C-alpha cells in the first residue's frame, strides 16, 4: 500500500489539490493499480534500449520558419478564452 505521504507528494508534483477523502481513496486505488502493473516484472527484457517508433515517421517533422497569416479573430478568440485579462493580455498572479 502506498503511503499517504507519498500520495500527497505525487499530488504536489501533479499540481493537484486533493481533499482528505480523495487522498484516502487515491491511496487505495493507486495501490491496486500499481500492484497490477507489477505483472511487467515478468516481461522478457529487450536487448536494445526501447525506441519510440511510429508509423511512417522516419525523421523529425519540421516546417519552414515562416510567418503564416491567420485571421485576427483567431488571436482574439485565443486570448478571449483566458479567465483573467487586461486589454489583449492574459493576467497572471504575482509569482514572488
Amino acid at each position, binding site marked *: 500500500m502506498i503511503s499517504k505521504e507519498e500520495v500527497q507528494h505525487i499530488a504536489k508534483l501533479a499540481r493537484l489539490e486533493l481533499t482528505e477523502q480523495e487522498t484516502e481513496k487515491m491511496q487505495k486505488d493507486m495501490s491496486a493499480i500499481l500492484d*497490477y502493473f507489477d505483472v511487467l516484472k515478468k516481461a522478457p527484457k529487450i536487448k536494445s534500449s526501447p525506441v519510440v517508433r*511510429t508509423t*511512417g515517421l522516419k525523421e523529425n517533422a519540421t516546417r519552414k520558419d515562416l510567418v503564416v497569416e491567420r485571421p485576427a479573430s483567431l488571436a482574439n478568440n485565443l486570448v478571449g478564452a483566458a479567465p483573467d485579462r487586461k486589454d489583449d493580455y492574459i493576467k497572471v*498572479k504575482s509569482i514572488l
Partner: protein
Amino acid sequence: MNLLDLTIIELHEGFKKKQFTSTEVTKAYLEQIKKTDGQIGAYLTVTEELALAQAEAADKIIATKKEFPMLCGIPFSVKDLIMVEGQICTAGSKILEKYVAPYDATVIKKLNAQGAVVLGKVNLDEFAMGSSTENSAYKVTKNPHDITRVAGGTSGGSAASVAAKQAVFSLGTDTGGSIRQPASFCGVVGLRTTYGSVSRYGVVADASSLDQVGPIAKTVEDAKIIFEAISGKDAMDATSVDYKFKDINVELKGLKIGVPKEYFAKGIDPKVEKIIREAIKKAQDAGAKIFQISLPSSKYALAAYYIIQTSEASANLARYDGIKYGLSSPAEKLLDVYIKSRGAGFGAEVKRRIMTGTYSLSSGYYDAYYKKAQEVRQLITQDFENAFKKVDVIFAPVSPFPAFKIGENTDNPLAMYLADIYTVSVNLAYLPGLSLPTGKVGKLPVGLQIIGNHFEENKILSVASQMESMLR
C-alpha cells in the same frame, strides 16, 4: 421510406434525384434527437442553428451542381473532444464547461469542405479516459439496445447517437479502444485508424502516442467514405503522414486470417466467444484460411498501456492551469490557482490517471514503470510484425463481454480497465482495427474486431464489407 434509415450513399442518391433535401433530412434527425435523447443522453450540445444553416448551404450546392461531394448535406455528430469553431467543447470535463472552440479541427474542416452538417457534440468519458462514458462530468449515455446498460466508452455518445438514429455517422477518437468498444456495445461499425493517417489538429489531447480520430457509422461502406474524407497529411499535425486512401477489393477466398490464441483465454464470456468463433467459421466457409497465431506479449499489454496512457495524459493535462483557459479558482498565489483550479475542475478518474502517470514518471520509479512499459510496447509491436508476416488480417473479439450494467464497475477502476484488454494492443502497435456488428447476446450486440497492418484500412474495410453481407 424512413429518412433515418438511409446510408450515406442512399442519401447522396436521394439528394441527386431530388427525392428529399438536406434540410428535410437534418430536420428529421433534429426531431429524432428531441424525441429520444432524454432517454439516451448522447448529446451534450445540439447545434441546431448551425445544422440548419449548413443544411441550407448544402441544399444550394445540391440544387445547382450536377456532381457534389459524397458527404454534402449529410448530418453527423462529433465527439465533444473535437473542436467545432464557435461551439462549446467540454471534453466531458467541468474544467472546460464554458470553453468555446477558437477554431475548427482539421477533420471538421475537411467534412465542412464537403458540405457535411454538424448536428451537435456528443458525450464521452472526461478527457477520453474510461470505458463506459460514466466518467463524463455531465451525464451517463445509455445503450440504445438496453438503457440499463452502458454505451461503452469513451466515444459512447458517438456510438449511441448512430445506434439510436440520432446521426448518420459520428466522429470519435480511439486511444485504447474508445471507438471499437462502444461500437461493439452499440452494434455499429467503428474504425480505429492507423497512427498518423488522420490529423489530430484541434482534437483535445489525451495520450499523444495513442490517440487517433476515426468514424463510427451504420455500415462498413459509410465508414470507408468518412475515412477517405478525413485522412491524409496535415501541416498542422507533425505526426500525420503522407497517406492517400486507395480502395481495394480483397477476396475472402484464400485470405489468411490469424486468430490469436491469447484473445480467447480465460476471462472471455463464453457467449461472446461463440459469436466470434461462428464469424470465423463463416469466413472459413467462404474460402478464407484460418491460422491460429500467438501474440505472446498480450498478457503485459494492459499494464503497459495504462502506464503509457497515464504518463502521457499527466503531461498533456498540465496545460489546464486556470490561467490560459477553462475553469479558474481564485487564489492569492499563482501556484494555488493551479492547484485549486485542477482540484475543482477534474473528475475522479482523471485525477487518478494524472496521479498514476505522475508516479510512473517520477524520480525513482521511471525505470520500473515508464521505461519498462516502453520496452513491452516494443515487444507487442514485434508480435504483430511477426503475425503480419504470416497472415493478412487478424480476427478477434473487441471486448470480453457485451455492454455491462450502469454502475457495475464504477467503484473498481481496475475492473473497468479490463474492458480494454483486447483493444489496447492495437493502439500500442499503432495499428488500425475495426469493430463489426456480428451477433447478439440477448439484445446486446457483440462486435468482431478485424485488425490489419499499418495503413491497410482498405484491406480491413474490404474484408469487413464481405463479412457484413454474410452476417446480414
